[in-house]
Structure formats: C-alpha cells, structure tokens
C-alpha cells in the first residue's frame, strides 16, 4: 500500500464515519421528500377542482362558455367539476354565495350577472358582468393558486366571446375587445367578505409570516441546540462536567441554570433574527407589488397575540434545549457532539418545509396528527393560527409544548442524576446486553 493510499484510507475512515453517512442519507431523504411534496402541490394546482357557477342570466350562454373553456383547460372534466346553480334571474348577495360555498366546500365561485348575454350581444356591445368569489385558506407557498385558475377561466371566456363577436359582426364599439366586466372580486377571510382582493394577493402579503416564523424557529432551534450540545461535548472532553457535578450544588440547579441561560440566549438570537428577516421579507414582498394591507382585512396580531408567540417560542426553545441536553449526555467529546444535533435539526426541518410549501390545511388527517406530534410545528404555525382565529390549535399547541418541555426537563434531570452522564450510553444495561448478544452472534 502506498503512502498516499495509507493516508487517504485513514482520512476517509474519519470523514465517512457512520454518523456522517447517516446524516448525508437523511439530508437526501429530506430533499427527496420535499421534491415529492412540491410536485404534489404543483400537480394540485394544474389538476381540475370544483368551481361553483351561479347563473343569474336567463339563458345558459355564459355557462356554456365557461364549461367549454374548463374542458379545454382540464381535458373535458367540466361535467364533473363545474357545478351550476340557477340564480333565478336576479342579483345574488354575497352572503348567499358564501353560504353556498361553505356548505359545499367550494373555494371558487363565478356569478354571472343578469342580462349578461343581452348586454354583450347588443350593438354597440355593453359589458356583461361576472363576479368572482373566493374562500381564502391559509396554506403554504401555493396558497391562493386557485384564484388564478378561476380568473384564468373568466379571462379565457372573455377572449373567446370577444373573438366570436369580432368575427361575426362589425361596428361593435370599444367593448367588443373585452366584453366581460369582472366587476368586483370578493374573498371570504375569517368569515368576513373582503372586496377586490384575491386569495393570491393575500397569500403574497402573508408570505412573510408563512416563511419567517418557520425559518426563524428552525434556525434558532438548530443554532441554540448546536451550541448546547457542543458545550456538553466540550464539558465532557475537558472533564469540567465531572468537576461541576462534584460541587456542592444540586443537579437540578445545574440543569436549570444551563437551560434557562441557553433559552434566554435563544430568545435574544430569535428577536435579532426576526428583525433581520422582517426587513428582508419586507424588501422581497415590496418588490412583488403586494397591494394588500393585512391590517385592513383584519389579519394582524395584537400585543397579547405577540405575547403568545413569544411564550410559544420560549417553550419550543426550552423543549429543544432539553432534547439537546439529553442528546449531549451521550456525547463523548466535541467532535461527537456535532452529529448529535441531527435529530433536532430533522424535527425542526420537517414542519418548516411542510408549513412553508404545503400548509396545514392541505395535509390529510394522519399528516396533521403526525405533524402535531412534532413540538416545533406549533410555534411555526402560531402566527397564522392567531391571525385566522384558530384559538383551539393555539391552546393545543401551548398545552402540548408545556407538557413536552416539562417532560424534557424531567428526563434531563434524571439523566444528570444517572451514570450515563459520566459513562455514556456504552455502559448502560441495554447496550451492554446488546453488545453481548452481537458478540455471541459473531462467534
């Protein structure tokens, strides 16, 4: 074996340790999962979805046009997805439309106003009116995409009718090139009707919340977790922990001191990151020309809401620190400590990506249950939950985080009172029994 091979063999053995290979594999799995998730969401946007059409005209002209356009876009599926309700020739009010939408679970509705056909077939052309209604759902990156589909259908109908008119009749006047007046757009947000705002505009305005909270929480948890685990690794390597544990001070005091100081540091870092990210996202969203003022449509947080956000962040940090101190107990040294952060990072990354890209509402029930079990999901969703009045979810989140952080602190104190902190996991009964079992097997 050459000197080069000898050196390379030793180096590769160090770099490609079991823990580093596992971490790489997990990152690959997470990215693959994200890719599947994103393509699933993208498929949802391009796949047909229910559309409510309320026809207040006295004929089916506009409905037929909508069906034709829908069939072109979604491969002849209008029979299944376009649901037509007769408006009996009179103007319908917003409450009626909302009731119909919520009763049947529709997120998009087009109202064809009375005299639609007569107006556009008159000479010169008078604009026929269609109104769009949306039910806003707080979702992830693709939230509000449905509104662009509904709008696209109306735009396509507009174009089709215009082409027909122009090719068949002359001297139609200026409205012939755009015979449909889309009138007002109505979106239901938190049970209130917001005029002239589409879900996609609200989603754009909410992007900062949807992105900032999960991202900040993930960054804080992994950063503080890494600091705590590394500190534990250092303490073990330098044996300062052994010294500390023989001081005349209770173990609970040591654990509490370490936890609280790290939690305070986490909150300070968190506040700093939040300010920085707010500026960053403000810059980003302003370049996207978002015209929606969230405060005007009631999507804003009060002082007490922010207090709840801070409480949940503190509890999440406390839970993460508890986990890290337990994981840190199993480290032998600083180097080993670096890989121990992985379980925490994964637990923070999974809800972050799901909330960012899919949103809570689009998850199946089992997905919601599994995601709820990850304690860091709750603080990532708290801003949206508070904005949309999901107080049960907020209460469940606080309760779960309280229980989880208490459990983590309890286990941490137990670990600090046990031999594991000194001997590591290698000397526990379970590991000794396993080693013996595998030794026998190999014989």
């Amino acid at each position: 074996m050459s000197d080069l091979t000898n050196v390379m063999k030793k180096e590769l053995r160090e770099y490609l340790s079991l823990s580093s290979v596992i971490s790489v594999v997990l990152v690959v799995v997470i990215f693959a999962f994200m890719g599947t998730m994103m393509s699933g969401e993208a498929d949802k946007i391009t796949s047909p979805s229910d559309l409510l059409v309320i026809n207040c005209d006295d004929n089916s002209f506009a409905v037929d046009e909508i069906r034709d356009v829908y069939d072109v876009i979604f491969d002849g599926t209008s029979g299944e997805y376009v649901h037509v309700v007769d408006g009996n020739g009179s103007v319908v009010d917003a409450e009626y439309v909302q009731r119909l939408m919520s009763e049947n679970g529709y997120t998009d509705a087009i109202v064809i106003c009375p005299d639609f056909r007569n107006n556009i077939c008159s000479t010169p052309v008078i604009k026929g009116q269609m109104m769009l209604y949306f039910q806003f759902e707080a979702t992830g990156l693709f939230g509000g995409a449905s509104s662009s589909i509904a709008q696209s259908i109306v735009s396509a109908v507009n174009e089709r009718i215009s082409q027909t008119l122009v090719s068949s009749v002359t001297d139609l006047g200026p409205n012939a090139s755009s015979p449909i007046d889309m009138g007002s757009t109505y979106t239901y947000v938190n049970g209130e009707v917001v005029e002239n705002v589409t879900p996609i505009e609200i989603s754009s305005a909410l992007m900062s919340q949807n992105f900032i909270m999960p991202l900040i929480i993930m960054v804080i948890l992994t950063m503080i977790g890494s600091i705590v685990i590394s500190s534990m690794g250092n303490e073990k390597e330098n044996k300062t922990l052994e010294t500390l544990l023989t001081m005349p001070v209770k173990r609970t005091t040591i654990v509490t001191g370490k936890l609280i100081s790290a939690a305070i540091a986490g909150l300070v870092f968190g506040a700093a990151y939040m300010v920085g990210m707010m500026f960053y996202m403000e810059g980003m969203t302003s370049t996207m020309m978002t015209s929606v003022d969230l405060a005007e449509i009631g999507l804003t947080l009060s002082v007490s809401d922010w207090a709840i956000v801070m409480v949940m962040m503190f509890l999440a940090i406390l839970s993460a620190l508890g986990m890290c101190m337990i994981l840190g107990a199993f480290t032998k040294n600083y180097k080993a400590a670096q890989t121990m952060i992985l379980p925490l990072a994964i637990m923070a990354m999974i809800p972050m990506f799901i909330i960012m890209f899919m949103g809570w509402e689009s998850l199946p029930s089992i997905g919601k249950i599994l995601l709820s079990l990850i304690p860091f999901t709750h603080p990532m969703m708290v801003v949206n939950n508070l904005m949309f009045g999901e107080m049960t979810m907020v209460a469940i989140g606080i309760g779960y985080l309280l229980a989880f952080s208490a459990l983590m602190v309890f286990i941490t104190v137990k670990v600090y009172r046990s031999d594991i902190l000194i001997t590591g996991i290698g000397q526990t009964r379970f590991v000794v029994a396993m080693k013996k079992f595998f030794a026998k097997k190999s014989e």
Partner: protein
Amino acid sequence: MNDALVVKDVHKRYGDHEAVKGISFTVHEGEIFGLIGPNGAGKTTTLRMISTLLKISSGTIEVCGYDVSSQSDDVREVICYLPEDAGAYKDMTGRRYLNFMAGFFASGEKKQELVRKAISIADLGPRIDSKVDTYSKGMMRRLLIARAIMPSPKFAILDEVTSGLDVVNAHEIRDIIRDIADSGVTILLSSHNMHEVEVLCDRVAMIDGGEIILTGTPDEMKARYGARDLEEVFIRAVKEREGSQ
C-alpha cells in the same frame, strides 16, 4: 484515629460486567492514602463512586460520616474531586475560573479570600490572567489543584494527579499535595505510578481486576514480600492471587 472514608463491600456492575467486585478499605483522617493498580483495574470507577458521580450497585461508602448514596449533597460539601486529565473552561482566564468555582462556596469578601488563596497555591504569577487554553499541562494541573483545595475540603480525591507531567512539574505537584495534607486535609489519590505512591502515601491499597488485593503501609508491603519497591510488591501479589485461584 477517626476514619474519613469507609468503603464496605462495594460493587459496580454494568449489566453482567462487574467493574468493581466487592472492595473494602478505610482511609484515616489526615493521611494520604494511595489506590494503586494498572489501567482498567477499577481505580477511577471507585473514586467516581466515592465522589458521588457514579451510583453504587451494592455495598456502602461513607465519607466523613455521610453516606454517598443517601446523603450525596452533604458528601459534596466536604469533598473535592480532581479527575484525571481534567481541564478548565477554555474561554476563561485562570482568575475568572477560580472566581467562578469560588462562587459555589462563598460570596462577597469571603469569595475573594478564597480566590486569593487559590491564586497563591497555583503560583502562576501574571499568567493567572491568561486564558486557560494557553496554559501548559503543568500550569493547568496547578490551577486545578488550587481550585480543588481552595474551599478547604475535609477530603480530597485526586485521580492520577501527576499523569502526563514532566519530572519537575510532577515533583512540584507532589510538594503541593504534601502541603495540603499538612494542613489537615485527608487525601485519597489514585495512580499507576507505584514510585510516586511509595514516596507520597502513608498507606496504600492495591487494586487489580476490580478487587483489592493488598492493603497496608508501603514498608509493610515491601517487608511482606521481601521486595525492593511497590512495583515488585504488586507483581508478586498479583501472581500470588492468580496462584490461589
């Protein structure tokens, strides 16, 4: 003479593996007692059980009248423990480290008195204000011994205290240990350096394979085996035990 430490039939098990197999010995007040044996003999495990870091599987240990299992907080009030190859917090200066540790024992002027005493024991000169990660091994050991002795413990537990030090530094550390013992502190030290134990300890226990194989003064042991030094005593004692098994 009162006993500062009483170890009775102490076992330490990890599953089926028994690291310490029913050891018993006593350390009298004011003496320097050496626990000697090869690497892996069970010395550090025994010291960790005495200093409340590890739980005892069975048996009893009393330090200055306090039971380590049921009165561990009281035990920690009267002992100091210096682990083998211990370090200090790297981002602290020597003075700050001593300040931090003194905070566990006193506050205000009393705390400053403890720090001044420790600085005097460490005898590091102006380097006391340097970061500890710039210290040599000898300097670090002096700092840690000063930290251990600073609160005037009744019972000092020192694990391989001169391990890895050069001749001059090891000699200086042994002098410090003698001074500590002269001030009335009972010392239990472990070492695999038989010569060191011979020149430093009043009494010695030899441990091998988790069992105490011999206890007595260095002179008694040498006389019993007609040996020149403790190293020879240890080898003969191990052979004698193997022969009797």
